[in-house]
């Protein structure tokens, strides 16, 4: 019975090569239940390869991937354990939306009524009898998501689920992913755009060129990226910029009266401005966006790559 199954996806030391290209290189991370884990990296970073390895579709050259402590290929009714959306367009265009879900349900012994339930769940009930070839990309994404949740699985993988969705759809999928995680499921969502995961992901796994760049909670990442940056509002902005720059701070001008300062502690900034008679109207800790934090991370990674290349 599956009731006691733990909803954890573990990737350990996975390495996968396609010919001379190393797609994934010694990658390890864990996806836990009750969280949305963002799986982020630029196109070609190895995200889809990793998902295929987790699903037992591609065999890794080294390492293991376990779902609920077991290799995927050992599952006898895998849809009840792991639901996955890999490619929303991987549907025969001549087949009706409902029939596409029906064969999936039958293959895992799920009742046909479950198909109607998940179509309702993703808002496709009215398109159930339409052929896949006539569905928009957004509708195909919903169909793919319906397929992923068909088996009511405790572990879910979504590869770029936001692609092709309209703003309404994007809002919907964010809420949907959150609900799934709040129910205790492990949800892994890949994306090449960090901004798509803003306000959705609890945890991030960032990869570049097949290697792990960061495995961190969103809160820690933002805190790290925001650390030692403060925002100051002052009417004497240009004098303040010169002053602070001379004192060794890095200063960038924001809108109208704000400055973003790093490299100097807040007390020192306030004291300096006070000494020179510049009024300080507001001092706040700067809150970095996820996108900024990601840029910082990947910049470091790219610098590292550049250094490594030069040394080589």
């Amino acid at each position, binding site marked *: *019975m*599956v*009731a*006691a*199954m733990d*909803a954890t996806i573990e990737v350990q030391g996975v390495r996968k090569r396609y010919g001379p290209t190393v797609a994934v290189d010694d990658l390890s991370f864990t996806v836990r*239940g009750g969280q949305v884990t963002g799986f982020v990296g630029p196109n070609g970073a190895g995200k889809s390869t990793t998902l*295929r390895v987790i*699903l*037992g*579709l*591609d*065999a890794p050259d080294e390492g293991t991937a376990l779902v609920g402590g077991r290799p*995927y*290929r*050992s*599952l*006898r*009714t*895998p*849809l*009840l354990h*792991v639901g*996955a959306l*890999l*490619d929303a*367009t*991987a*549907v*025969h265009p*001549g*087949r*009706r939306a409902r*029939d*596409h879900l*029906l*064969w*999936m349900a*039958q*293959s*895992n*012994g*799920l009742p046909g009524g479950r198909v109607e339930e998940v179509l*309702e*769940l993703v808002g496709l009930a009215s398109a159930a009898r339409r052929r896949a070839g006539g569905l928009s990309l957004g509708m195909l994404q919903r169909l793919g998501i319906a*397929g992923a*949740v068909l088996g*009511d*699985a*405790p572990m879910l993988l979504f590869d770029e689920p936001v692609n092709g969705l309209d703003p309404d759809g994007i809002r*919907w999928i964010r*809420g*949907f992913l959150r*609900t*799934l995680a709040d*129910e*205790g*499921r492990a949800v892994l969502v890949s994306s090449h755009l960090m901004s798509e995961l803003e306000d959705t992901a609890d945890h991030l796994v960032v990869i570049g060129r097949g290697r792990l760049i960061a495995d961190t909670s969103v809160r820690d990442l933002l805190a790290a990226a925001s650390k030692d940056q403060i925002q100051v509002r002052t009417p004497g902005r240009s004098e303040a910029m010169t002053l602070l720059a001379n004192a060794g701070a890095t200063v960038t001008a924001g809108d109208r009266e704000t400055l973003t300062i790093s490299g100097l502690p807040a007390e020192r900034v306030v004291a300096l401005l006070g000494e020179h008679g510049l009024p300080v109207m507001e001092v706040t800790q700067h809150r970095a966006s996820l996108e900024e934090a990601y840029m910082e991370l990947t910049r470091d990674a790219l610098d590292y790559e550049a250094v490594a290349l030069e040394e080589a």
Partner: protein
Amino acid sequence: MPTMTKPGADRQPETDGRDRFGRLVRAEWTKLRTVPRWLMALAAVIGLALLVVLIESDQAGNEVEEGEPLEEPEFRDELHFVHQPLSGDGSITARVVSQEDSHEWAKAGVIVKERLEVGAPYAALLVTPDHGVRMQWGFEHDVAGSGGGAAPWWLRLTRSGDVVTGYESADATNWQQVGEVDLDGLPSTVEVGLFVASPDVVTIARQYGSNSVNEAATRGEAVFDNVSVEADGGSPSPGNGEWNDYDTSVEPDLGGSTESDGVFTLMGAGDIARNVRPFGDDLVELSLSGARVGMLAVAALGALFITAEFRRGMIRTTFAASPRRGRVLAAKAIVLGGATFSVGLIASVVSFLGWQANLRRTSRTPGLPELSLANPTVLRAVVGTAVLVALVAVLSLAIATIVRHTAVAIPLVILPLLVPSILSGGLPLPVANWLTRLTPAAGFAVQQTVTRYDTAIAPLVGLGVLAAYAAVALGVATMLLRRRDA
């Protein structure tokens, strides 16, 4: 947004493996039936078969010669027979003085025949121009004598109960047994006597697309003397020793006999043997020729059933739902095979019946005998055609799984099936026959209902060759499917 149940709650218990395989078969059947084009391909098998029937049977109706029976007996029983009855045990002895070399298998000798009727059981002891002394019975049994036996030669058949024994001798002193046969249920009075037969001479000219066959009767002739019929225990001959003529020669004016002073000269044309009907059209096979066209639709369907999944990446959804890939392929093969067998069976039954009906309508020949589906040979061809269609589909599925591209798979399936029949007309017969035996085209043999001079392989053996190709291809496909990344 509707919420879902808590993970892990309310799950169905896992069931045993056989049940799970049943699920796979159901899922694959859903895949097959929910793509309208695939259903159209299945319907096309029936449609194309019917079309071929309409076109071909009109022509065939004119080709069937007047009075030519559609159903022929399994044997030929053509001879000139000079006979008298023999009651109870006894023997017939005669010397073949000379024999015309009308055919290497021309026959002259003595015979015990149950009664004067075509097909009645017999045992014959005979000499031939090129194959020595033979003892033959039941239209297919043939035992060679001592070798070197040729006219002039002494022959004797004795009857004891149901057992007939043949002896030969060069000098009427030293007799040597040739063979012995138990003719079960032989009546107490049988017909014994002398006979002569001589098979047709056949010449064949082969050209691309057509074979012209010339069959000419030959006239056998042999001279006998020292003819004696002896009943054991001296019981009187029911015919008072009087000889009578019985002739079933292939052309009646070629048969005949003369007798003077105990020297008999017999003439006859034909053969006493299994009927190989080597040159007649196989009307059942012709009626099923639509399968060759329908096969194209089936081969395309078989390939698409898997390549459609490869092309769009749907194979990943399939293997994510069912990681045991060998079972997926097996389920696909069963569903595809079952569906194509069903339409193939409908197509071949309808073709056969439609052909028969059309032939009857268009042929001016009265009294064509009815060929029935209940005839086991016909049934084998009709059902075998459906199996043939299903095997082509499964072969195509397997090849397409190996090469993963529709455009590569379909020619790989179709060409070996069609090329032998196109080439064979222009090749020497043994080469053409080996080409047919060794390629998947051997499967078409299952449509044969007569054995012809150019028959390459027995019906079920041919089907077996095709099945072997399909099985090997499936095995390779399974291995590759397991090994390769999806």
